[in-house]
């Protein structure tokens, strides 16, 4: 196991513990969505060129969470990396704070862009990538989307654009947990064969186990000459047995007993 993989294991564990607490304390939705994407976000941040003490460092890589409802994950990762004190995570969802349920850049160092409405992040990411590439800079851009979000037409516009302009500095990852707001993705608006569809748009597509850090890191470090999509097969609610694979935990927040059980499982 590499040092990076060891760090990611610890980071993912800490983030999951933060997230279930935050969702309990704030009585907020989306804990299932947060748990499914935790490993993905932790891996991305572990390969990014960043300086937590200088969130606006000109040479930094960019991270855009297009599935903005998993904001608690990004806040937790940033806190663990030292962008701001972990104590601030108590502000999540609270009256008077700027740590909204959907990820917010306001007063939250390290958050590049506020999202919440699905289908925006990939275009913004492509715009950043186009700009840095045109200017001959080395910054890379990472964008995490949900699979349900792929119903938004704007994403496919962005896919076309990124491929046309050969934005090889852009990596998108889809949290492919196969569930969305009411039922599964394939019952709602079938995405499969998603890899072939995105590949047909001119991207290099890699498919990984979205909870296997080694696989995710290998995919992230794979060099390609075009924009890269990593489809991450995940489980909604991963890590907490009674939350796994359930649409309920897109909406519900754990009560005190459920929180205690969850934290016991997340040791």
């Amino acid at each position, binding site marked *: 196991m590499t040092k990076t993989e060891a760090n990611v294991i610890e980071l993912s564990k800490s983030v999951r513990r933060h997230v279930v607490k935050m969702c309990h304390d704030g009585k907020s939705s989306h804990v299932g969505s947060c748990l499914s994407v935790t490993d993905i976000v932790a891996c991305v941040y572990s390969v990014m060129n960043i300086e937590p003490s200088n969130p606006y460092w000109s040479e930094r890589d960019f991270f855009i969470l297009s599935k903005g409802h998993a904001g608690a994950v990004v806040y937790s990762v940033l806190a663990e990396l030292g962008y701001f004190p972990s104590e601030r995570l108590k502000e999540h969802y609270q009256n008077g704070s700027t740590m909204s349920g959907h990820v917010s*850049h306001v007063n939250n160092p390290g958050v*590049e*862009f*506020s*999202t*919440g*409405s699905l*289908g*925006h992040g*990939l*275009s*913004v*990411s*492509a*715009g*950043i*990538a*186009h*700009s*840095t590439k*045109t*200017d001959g800079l080395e910054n890379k851009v990472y964008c995490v989307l949900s699979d349900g979000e792929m119903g938004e*037409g*704007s994403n496919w*516009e*962005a896919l*076309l*654009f990124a491929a*046309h302009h050969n934005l090889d500095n852009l990596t998108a990852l889809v949290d492919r947990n196969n569930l969305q707001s009411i039922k599964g993705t394939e019952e709602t608006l079938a995405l499969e064969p998603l890899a072939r569809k995105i590949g047909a748009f001119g991207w290099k597509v890699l498919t990984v186990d979205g909870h296997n850090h080694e696989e995710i890191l290998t995919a992230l470090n794979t060099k390609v000459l075009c924009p890269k999509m990593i489809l991450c097969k995940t489980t909604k609610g991963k890590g907490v047995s009674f939350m796994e694979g359930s649409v309920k935990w897109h909406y519900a927040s754990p009560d005190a007993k459920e929180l205690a059980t969850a934290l016991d499982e997340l040791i």
Partner: protein
Amino acid sequence: MRSNWLENVENAITFESKDIVIITADLGYGVFEKFEKNFPKNFINCGVSEQNMVGIAAGLALRGKKVFCYSIGNFPTLRCLEQIRNDVCYHNLDVCVVTVGAGFGYGQLGMSHHATEDLSIMRCIPNLSCYMPYDTQSTAMITKRIISLQKPSYLRLERSCVDEVSSTELQSFENPVLLGKGGCKTLILSCGGITEEAVRLQHKLNAAGTKTNLMIIQSFEDCNFKDVLTAFAQSERIVSIEENVVVGGLGAWASELITRNGINVRMFTYGLNDTFTSLVGDQRYLRKECGIDSETLFAELMMEVR
């Protein structure tokens, strides 16, 4: 107006070294060829994808570019309104959304191309300044103004040539623009290309003995409100004319100011009714059909002022 806008953008890149990018959603045939050739790094055709266009613009602006997003009619506004609101305005990014074909500029093409509610809708978005040039000089001043400011904006250009309102060369952006000697009981209020009808109306009313001032509003937000309120307070009646629905546009803007400041004045709001127009016609024809041409307005107002 469009060529005037583009010329000023080119000047800003050439002579002021502004880092400007124009993105078009695949419109502007015969417009951008020279620009693209001269400034290849400053031009992107993103194809027929307006939502993506504004998202890309946000990404470019995050990297310090000034971005103009271009299309016609309602395409760069209503089609991608959420991107304008969430990605550009909420993040306070230096992006200007440009449309060509205000009002019935593309009248013969049908209702899909009638930009007749945009003033109302765009005015409502926080942190967005709407600019409505009324002739080519106004377009030049407004474009320079937009380039000098680094904040979200909306620029509503006419498709066709409009009469120049004044032969006097404007030196800078001023809003409002007042035509007349002041102190008249009747004040016409207009914005955008329909100002040419408002000018004709003013001449007709003056000739008929009803002394009238004309106040042109170039922006709802970037405005000297003191001058506006002074002119309102000095009037007995205000007649607002817009090529936009009467709900929420120029007339509503004026009415809100009047109510909020307790000004005692009679307000007449002329614009388009709360209905779609299925008739085919050029801009002048449709203005007449909708009763916002100078002849129709003059006839109505003369009944009021007698």
